């Protein structure tokens, strides 16, 4: 340790601002430059991976695909072609249903500028599809925001068929099915933990 104070310990009234900047006389009356425009524009031709392309094409016909891990059979959605826990290729595609439950959720009261189609409050949620081992993000609607809860069973509300496409926007939102809730101890990532312990204590380091 030294006696030199670290910056955040210096009281604000002791922080020196330094001497005023003295410009050379030749430019002393020139208008100061306050900003610089840098016209560099970078463009990218982004091509989705094979897994993302399969997923998006299937999504356009109201199918939801996932990848199954070759290590322990865990199903990931959307598919990314790898099991990120094990760093191995996971290219087996699995068809998933469009029903599941809310694993966790968030109620937002601030509007997103430009999104007039999204009145506040709106509910974003981790949707845990039946048969998938991780959640993916979606909106929950069709009920009051205050009624959304962890474990609530939901189904996809798709766009009209004519508006479907290879985009992430085909599911307008997820609505309650009215079926009994998934018990909170088995909802969301808890389901994953239960499955791991049932399989024998989970991963070894």
């Amino acid at each position, binding site marked *: 340790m030294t006696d030199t104070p670290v910056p955040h310990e210096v009281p604000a009234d002791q922080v020196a601002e330094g001497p005023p900047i003295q410009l050379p006389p030749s430019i002393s009356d020139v208008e100061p430059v306050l900003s610089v425009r840098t016209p560099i524009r*970078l463009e990218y031709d982004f091509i989705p991976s094979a897994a993302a392309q399969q997923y998006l094409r299937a999504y356009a016909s109201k199918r939801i695909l996932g990848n199954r891990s070759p290590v322990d059979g865990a199903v990931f959605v959307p598919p990314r072609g*790898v099991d*990120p826990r094990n760093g191995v290729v996971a290219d087996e595609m699995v068809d998933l249903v469009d029903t599941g439950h809310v694993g966790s959720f968030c109620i937002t009261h601030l509007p997103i500028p430009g999104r007039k189609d999204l009145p506040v409050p709106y509910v974003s949620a981790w949707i845990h599809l039946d048969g998938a081992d991780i959640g993916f993000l979606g909106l929950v609607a069709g009920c009051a925001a205050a009624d959304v809860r962890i474990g609530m069973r939901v189904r996809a509300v798709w766009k009209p068929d004519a508006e479907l496409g290879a985009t992430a926007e085909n599911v307008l939102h997820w609505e309650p099915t009215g079926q009994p809730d998934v018990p909170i101890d088995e909802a969301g990532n808890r389901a994953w933990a239960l499955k791991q312990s049932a399989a024998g204590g989970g991963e070894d380091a």
Partner: protein
Amino acid sequence: MREVAVVSSAIYQVEALTFTTDVQLMVPLINEARSAVGLTQADIGFTCSGSSDFLAGQGFSFVQTLDAVGAFPPISESHVEMDGAFALYEAWVKLQVGEVDTALVYSYGKSSPGSRRDVLAVQLDPYTVAPLWPDAHAVAALQARLLLESGAVSAEGLAEIAVRSQHHAVGNPNALRASAGATVAGVLSEPVVADPLRASDIAAESDGGCVVVLAAGDRARSLCERPAWIRGIDHRIDAHGLGVRDLTRSPSAALAAQMAGAGQDRLDLAELHGPTTSQEHILATELGLGADTVVNPSGGALAADTLMAAGLVRIAEAARRISSGGADRALAHATSGPCLQQNLVCVMEGE
């Protein structure tokens, strides 16, 4: 200083990885380098990577690429927005501290989705140079012009560097530009791309990645029959502003070589990260390479230049030649920034 060695490596470079994500590129490469020495991620003490969000076109892209490592249970990990050679330097420091005995280093670059010449412009001074939007070839050509006008090298001399690279690259599966029949006259007859630089003076752009496994002391000896021991490694930097430097020189490269002990003994080979023939000439001079040192036996960065990985590839290429018994002492060099601004020199030896 703790003994640290390169014990394994994997390299993959192609012209363009069109349908392959960074993750899909790195899964087989990382597994190849680890399994070559019988390691899994659980055996790796520290993981460090190098890549650029400007190439990926998205922020924190390296976090996604960790999917390729298998980062569960959670790992000790770091990242540099630089060439993987500088990630290797960080891993080497970590190994010097002594808390870990093994490290996984990787880097990758996929510049084909964008314009590399323009991406590189954003590393220039943001107030006085970048607004002019000079592309990377033009900046390198300014340096090459100064070099030619200084009399330090002739146009024929630069063409000889290009020809040697193309000859050496024959048989290198990771080289894009290789030709046993390349000639000085042939190179000099090429149209200029950025006067005075011709196509063969400028590195062949590639997409790809590189992985290196480091290990310390007896752990390295147990993993590898002939580890490539890092006897010296140093990283120096020149001023960022192009106007304040003598662009025909690279004092930081010379100092890094001196601090890494490059000149203390004979060097069998040197793998130089020179993105143009003019820069390779400057490097060979500053590093004090003698006539008995084979320069770029792999073809060097001119044969295939994967942005963010070309420096790490140099270390891997040099280490392989030591481990195979083809060389006893080798120098590997990596650069970053415009006109050889930053330079790293790594000196390796066999036992």
